[in-house]
């Protein structure tokens, strides 16, 4: 009797705590949302009020009709860059991981250490010289400079190698008896049994590209139509410094794409952290 009441109280406290945490976590965005519809004079008007007295859409018009930047084009190009990068990154890193996990070749150990240790090199250390390299390759101000340099990743190869090690070897042996080549086994079997890690890594690659800021700032300087979304948000935040409604529209609309993708893959990601957490 006593124990069950205690449990009930515990459950109630637990739920209350979870509600509180949800509120804190969502609060900053929720607080900002209605201000997208507030006029310039109302936005910092005291006393504080959450919903606008007068709903206006001027801020949206400003963001979508800028003479020199195309906001929607930026979202589109950032999404395109991110999607292409996810596909290429999964392909390139999974191929390498499969080679390391299931194929024997000379100098394997050396190549493994070589590729794996690249994950300990922080981006900032090679930022300036990477810009030199891409400029030497004539990639500056092209879509390729946004995609190609970040495709291969020591960590992702490591992650997939660990996962492939867990795949039973008899699958491979059976496929070889059926006459499948090593490459065939990878493309026909391994890519199909790796949905969960592909979603987890794919999502993190997508977020990395979609949210990237420093690299586009360094490499896309002349072609404003290739401005990545965070780069544009930052540009607008300094241009419309006194006009927060506009800045908030630009910022919050940019979150729609990652949120929708998360909603779609949410189940995989939240469960997948138990695998990915052990990095």
């Amino acid at each position, binding site marked *: 009797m006593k124990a069950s009441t205690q449990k009930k109280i515990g459950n109630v406290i637990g739920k209350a705590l979870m509600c509180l945490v949800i509120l804190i976590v969502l609060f900053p965005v929720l607080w900002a949302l209605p201000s997208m519809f507030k006029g310039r004079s109302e936005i910092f008007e005291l006393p*504080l009020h959450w919903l606008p007295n007068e709903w206006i859409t001027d801020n949206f018009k400003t963001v979508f009709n800028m003479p020199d930047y195309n906001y929607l084009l930026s979202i589109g190009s950032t999404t395109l860059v991110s999607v292409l990068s996810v596909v290429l990154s999964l392909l390139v890193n999974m191929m390498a991981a499969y080679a390391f996990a299931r194929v024997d070749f000379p100098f394997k150990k050396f190549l493994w250490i070589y590729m794996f240790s690249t994950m300990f090199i922080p981006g900032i250390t*090679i930022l300036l010289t990477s810009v030199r390299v891409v400029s030497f390759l004539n990639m500056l101000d092209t879509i390729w400079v946004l995609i190609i340099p970040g495709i291969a990743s020591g960590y992702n190869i490591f992650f997939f190698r660990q996962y492939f090690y867990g795949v039973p070897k008899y699958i491979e042996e059976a496929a070889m008896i059926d006459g499948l080549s090593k490459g065939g086994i990878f493309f026909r079997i391994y890519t199909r049994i790796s949905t969960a890690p592909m979603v987890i890594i794919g999502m993190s690659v997508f977020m990395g590209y979609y949210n990237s800021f420093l690299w586009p700032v360094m490499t896309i300087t002349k072609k404003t139509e290739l401005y990545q979304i965070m780069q544009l948000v930052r540009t607008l*935040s300094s241009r419309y410094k006194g006009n927060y409604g506009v800045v908030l529209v630009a910022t919050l609309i940019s979150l729609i794409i990652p949120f929708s993708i998360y909603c779609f893959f949410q189940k995989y990601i939240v469960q997948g952290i138990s695998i990915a957490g052990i990095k």
Partner: protein
Amino acid sequence: MKSEGKAKLNAFHAKIFGKNKFKYRYAFTGYALLAPAFILLTVFVVVPLLIAIVRSFFDYRSYADVQKFVGLDNYLTIIRTTSFVNSFLNALLFAVIIVVAQLLLSFSFAHVLKADKSGFGLVTRAIVYIPYLISGVAASIVFLFMTNYGGGLINGILLQLDMKPIAIDMEKTWARVFVILPTLWLGFGYNALVMYAGLINIPKDYYEAATLDGANWWNKLIKITVPSMMNYFLLTIVGLLTGALAMFEIPFMMTGGGPLESTLTPVLYLFNNYRNVLQSSSVTIAGAILVMIIIGTLNSVVFFLVQSKKSEDD
């Protein structure tokens, strides 16, 4: 003549492959699968790193064609640069606060999630992850909006209570607080989920046996939970430490490193100086290499600790 060459080639082949000829029968496929990643990593990571290392030992100015080997001079210059040293001290302060706060918060909240039996925990887990999707730039704008001096949420409340408003770009302590808060906000959900994953992976019978032996919750926490989750702690700590040392977007957007360099971080310092014509870029690059040595050492130590613990467990 031709057959002699072929014999030599065969001998060479045998020397490399030796009795592994069978083992290596798919070597060509292996190299083909590896090639794209190998080339990309070489061109976009290894080559830039090598150039950076070489340049850090030369006096290199973009306007003069003279390049002079100067040994460790650039490194000596950078560690005597007050701003660079300050940026490291700031990063250290941020790292300590963020690691301690984030570990406590996420570890405690993971227990709340684990205790839930109603299914509401599932929803909570899905929601707390959301800030992890937001970039430092976007998060900073939302926080700048809340801390606006004229009438943002925080100052609005302070003004209505007849209190002095706070200016995060003028007061050192508040500047630091509002660099740390968005960082905690962005990472909290992810870290809580990692901790939760660690908690539910601990076998239940450990706790049942301990209960039979009359252990209280504190004993269980210290003797079972913490040791079982050592790897999760190590990895979370190194993730948070690396993240704190590499902080850039939030201080860049929130405070620009000010006031008086109180929120300047190493990466922000390097970013500002890459475009500074007065300081030789070799000096900045030497600083960048020092950042790599520190972060790299940290990461590899923890990585090998975890790996060796894993092999012990097996």
